């Protein structure tokens, strides 16, 4: 499966394809899909939309996206990494290791598990795709 190696694709090309996938999946306008927009809070993504987004990105870029890549539920439900509803320092390290493409700097300031769902931005998705296609 896949559309060949897309390494070398410019970041503008990646953004355009990610934008197009999000416009299709979420029924939002092009200009709403800015790099800073969060998928859940700003673009209104519901949990089921993430599966749709995954299908669209896989098709657009010819990549495979394992479930755990985008939703580190195993970390967020692991008592070793979560205390009193907050991700511990060890948990944050684990999250960064799993999701090096995600900007966790804001989340780190007050790492409440309940806020994790609204963390990912369009820019994060672009960086994730770049990491998959080796761009």
């Amino acid at each position, binding site marked *: 499966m896949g559309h060949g190696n897309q390494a070398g694709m410019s970041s503008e090309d990646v953004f355009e394809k990610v934008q197009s996938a999000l416009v299709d999946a979420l029924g939002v306008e092009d200009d709403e899909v800015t790099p800073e927009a969060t998928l859940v809070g700003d673009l209104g993504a519901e949990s089921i939309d993430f599966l749709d987004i995954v*299908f669209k990105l896989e098709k657009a870029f010819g990549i495979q996206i394992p*479930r755990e890549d985008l939703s580190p539920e195993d970390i967020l439900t692991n008592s070793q990494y979560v205390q009193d509803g907050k991700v511990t320092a060890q948990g944050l390290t684990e999250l960064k290791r799993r999701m090096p493409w995600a900007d966790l700097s804001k989340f780190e300031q007050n790492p409440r598990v309940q806020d994790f769902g609204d963390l990912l931005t369009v820019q994060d998705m672009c960086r994730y795709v770049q990491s998959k296609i080796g761009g």
Partner: protein
Amino acid sequence: MRWFWIDRFTSFHSGREATAIKNVSLVEEALDDYCLGYPYLPPPLIIEGLAQLGGVLVAEHMNFQKRVVLAKVVRAVFHQLAAPGDQLHYHAVLESVQDEGAMVSCTSKLHEQPQAEIQLMFAFLNENRFGEMPLFKPEELTTMLRLMRFFEVAVDPAGRPLDVTTDRSISPQ
């Protein structure tokens, strides 16, 4: 009332694609009130029929071991209405499968012309969130598929007829 929105499978290639017929009849209650005095098959029921066709395509591909539900109508475009006496030809293609669900592209044709283009996303119910209750008893599912003449046309990826059962819990594969 039977919630069957396809009448008959006309082909079924495991893991790939399936076709079915839907005859539109004035006797169907669903046509009565949708647009008074102007009966036609409500478009949501065309989506439902395609979801039944696509859902079986996905479920069979997963050896009937996953609970497959329609999660999202990704795209729906209708080109014409389907009136009593019309015969719709449905076609569903399995586009991709993930751990959590599958994407299916569907078309409906009337007199060889496009009637509808629908893209559907199916999800697999997760035991942790939705319990382990099956959606169908295996014998009910088998009966339903038999009524729709599924087993008369269904073939596996190698082109061999499928066994007349949906109980694959002890399947050698």
